[in-house]
Structures are given as structure tokens and as C-alpha cells.
């Protein structure tokens, strides 16, 4: 079981290194003393195992009760993986953006449009996180960009460990890596993946009070994309109030209104990515 991501242990699957499709059965049995694995093995690159924790935790103990001070951050392990990812991304000159939203906000559609607009100027790759299916990775690959699908099984978020292994299967350099997180406005806020920025995506078909309902995510993000703005004439969505709510949670957040369908705001979004890439690169060499 992955020591960071306990949820959905043994059901995490990573699929599609270098646009190579690979299906495999993947079962883990687990208890806290032993790990048993049953796999049908494929090429190591495309087949990642979650479950290499310490096998035997028992140690000859003292019989007397005692207190030990730990003062350890519970997410320290995830943060270590995230730091390693950050170092690797810096080494390769890659800007990583962690896209977070509720399900159905239009992340994949926006991403497909973004890739189509950017591909000529910069290499782009995608890590797709979903509980099940490789549908989104296939949609991305249809644009010609490499995509790796991570299925989290029962898990509600991507973690640093999963992204590190997905990164091994991507050859991207001097480009932009989009990490499309599991559709969930709660849990992904707490897990650093090594990204340069979290970008929260909110569609106008959702409520304008979403930033207040899910403050952690809006607080953790540097940019908010308000998507599907082409639908605004048909809705009672109050854009100004939504933006005000987001800024109440996070006074520093930048907000762009975009529509993948009409192209509104897409140039600004691309400009933000270019500038972030520059900022990420300056001082690294």
C-alpha cells in the first residue's frame, strides 16, 4: 500500500507511459505486518506498484510504557515526494500546473483547447487523475500530446508519490506539464504534488458561493479560471459576486473568465502560462 495514499490501496493504476496503452490486472493484499502482491507483470516502466512499505514493523520493545515526542507533520512523507518531483521538474525545465475543480467543470475540454493552442510553441504533457477509466487520457492523446492516466481506485486525490512515478513515464523537457487532478474540491487542496501553481477551475453552471463552501481549495490556488462563460446569458450566475467570494478567501488570487468553446479569455490564460514559465525558469540556471 502506498504509504502516503491509503485510500483505495492496491487499486491505483498508472497507464500509458509514452502514449503506450497497457492493461493489467493489479491486486494487492495488505495488512500492517506483511505485504503480499499478486501481479501480472508488464514492462516495468508502465506498471507501477503501490505497496512497498516496511514489511515488518515489529521491534523488540521495552515493556514499560513511555512517551515519545514526535512532532512530525503527518503529510511529511507526501511533502518529501513533492519536493523530489519539484527538483526533477526544475532539472527538466518543466512548469507543472495542478488543475483542481469539481467533477464536470470542463477541465478536460479546457485542456484540449489549451493544448491545441500551445502545441506549436512549447512541448506539453498531461497527467490525468481519475478514479476509473482512461477516457480523459485518450481525449488528450487525440490532440497528439503525451498523456499518462493515473487511476486512483477509491482514492479522492493524486499524491506526490503517484505523480513522481507518472513523471518517470514522460519524457517532457522545457515544456508545460498539466496535472489534471481528481474532480474534487476538498482533498486535493492538502496534497502538494510538486507543482508550481494550483489552478482552480470553477464553471458558471456551479454556484457563485463555491469559494465560500470549499475555501481550502481557493486558498491554495494562485489562479482561478471561471469556465463556460459562453453559457452566462442563460444563467443567473453573478460573476462579480463569485469573484468577490474568491478574493475573500484568497486576496491574492488572479481570476480569468474563459470559454473553451468561444475562445474568450484563452489568450490571457496562455499569457499567464507563458509568464509563469518564465518566472519558473528565471534564476534556475
Amino acid at each position, binding site marked *: *500500500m*502506498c*504509504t*502516503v*495514499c*491509503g*485510500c483505495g*490501496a492496491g487499486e491505483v493504476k498508472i497507464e500509458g507511459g509514452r502514449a503506450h496503452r497497457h492493461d493489467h490486472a493489479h491486486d494487492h493484499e495488505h*495488512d*500492517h*505486518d506483511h505485504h503480499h502482491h499478486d501481479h501480472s507483470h508488464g514492462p516495468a516502466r508502465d506498471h507501477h506498484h503501490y505497496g512497498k*512499505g*516496511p514489511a515488518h*514493523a*515489529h*521491534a*523488540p*520493545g*521495552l*515493556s*514499560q*510504557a*513511555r*512517551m*515519545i*515526542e*514526535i*512532532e*512530525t*507533520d*503527518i*503529510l*511529511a*512523507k*507526501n511533502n518529501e515526494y513533492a519536493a523530489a518531483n519539484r527538483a526533477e521538474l526544475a532539472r527538466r525545465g518543466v512548469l507543472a500546473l495542478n488543475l483542481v475543480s469539481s467533477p464536470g467543470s470542463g477541465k478536460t475540454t479546457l485542456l484540449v483547447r489549451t493544448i491545441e493552442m500551445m502545441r506549436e510553441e512549447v512541448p506539453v504533457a498531461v497527467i490525468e487523475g481519475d478514479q476509473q477509466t482512461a477516457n480523459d487520457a485518450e481525449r488528450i492523446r487525440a490532440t497528439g500530446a503525451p498523456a499518462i492516466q493515473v487511476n486512483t481506485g*477509491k*482514492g*479522492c*486525490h493524486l*499524491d506526490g508519490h503517484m505523480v513522481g512515478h507518472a513523471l518517470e513515464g514522460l519524457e517532457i523537457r522545457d515544456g508545460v506539464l498539466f496535472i489534471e487532478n481528481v474532480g474534487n474540491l*476538498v*482533498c486535493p*487542496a*492538502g*496534497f502538494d504534488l510538486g507543482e508550481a501553481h494550483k489552478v482552480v477551475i470553477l464553471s458558471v453552471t456551479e454556484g457563485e458561493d463555491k469559494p*465560500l463552501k470549499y*475555501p*481550502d481549495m481557493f*486558498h491554495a490556488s494562485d489562479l482561478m479560471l471561471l469556465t463556460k462563460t459562453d453559457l452566462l446569458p442563460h444563467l443567473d450566475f453573478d460573476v462579480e459576486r463569485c469573484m468577490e*467570494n474568491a*478574493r*475573500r*478567501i484568497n*486576496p491574492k488570487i488572479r481570476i480569468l473568465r474563459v470559454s473553451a468553446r468561444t475562445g474568450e479569455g484563452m489568450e490571457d490564460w496562455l499569457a499567464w502560462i507563458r509568464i509563469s514559465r518564465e518566472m519558473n525558469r528565471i534564476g534556475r540556471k
Partner: protein
Amino acid sequence: MHEMSICESIVSVIEQQAVAQSFSRVKRVRLEIGPLAGVELEALRFSYDVVTKGGIAEGSALEVIEMPVTAWCMPCARPVTVRERYDPCPDCGSYQVQITGGDELRIRDMEVD
């Protein structure tokens, strides 16, 4: 439901410590959690019992020390106490409030055999 993964991380820390500090049984674990850590305490307690089953922390008591939310009001230029990220300064009503604490998610200590 990321309380489950948080509990997995706790168990992982316990198992590392068990080797490093030579103990074989955990009786009590004390956590420090702030209201802004994004953790539902009831779900955490439930997950803890499930995740610790069969391991060295099975049956151990989980105690949670709830940390306060602390903040700095920029117009007032002094520390204030708020409840949520979007609360205004209780004195001047400004939203220019920087949260300085309250997102702790730490294991403080544990009682072991």
C-alpha cells in the same frame, strides 16, 4: 475521504518510529490539528480504528488537540482571532487578514510500550 490516507500516514510514521525507537505497542497517540487543516475529526477517528487494525497501534487511543486559528490584521497591525479563512477582522471589519496558524496537522507524541 482523505482522512483514510491521513491515517495511513500516521501508521507509517508509527511504524518507522517503532523501528527507530524500539517499541512494539502503541497505547495512545496525540495529534495537533487546526480547524483549517481540512480534516473531519469524526471521519478521522473512524478511519484510525480501521487502519490501525492488525498493526502495532491496534486499540490505541487517538487524542486530538485542537489548535486555534490565529491571524494578523493588516489595518490593525496586530494579531487577531478568527474562525474561518473568510472571516473579517473582529475589530475593524477588514478582510485584509492573513491567517498565521490553524492548519496544523501533526503528530505531537505517543505513549508506547
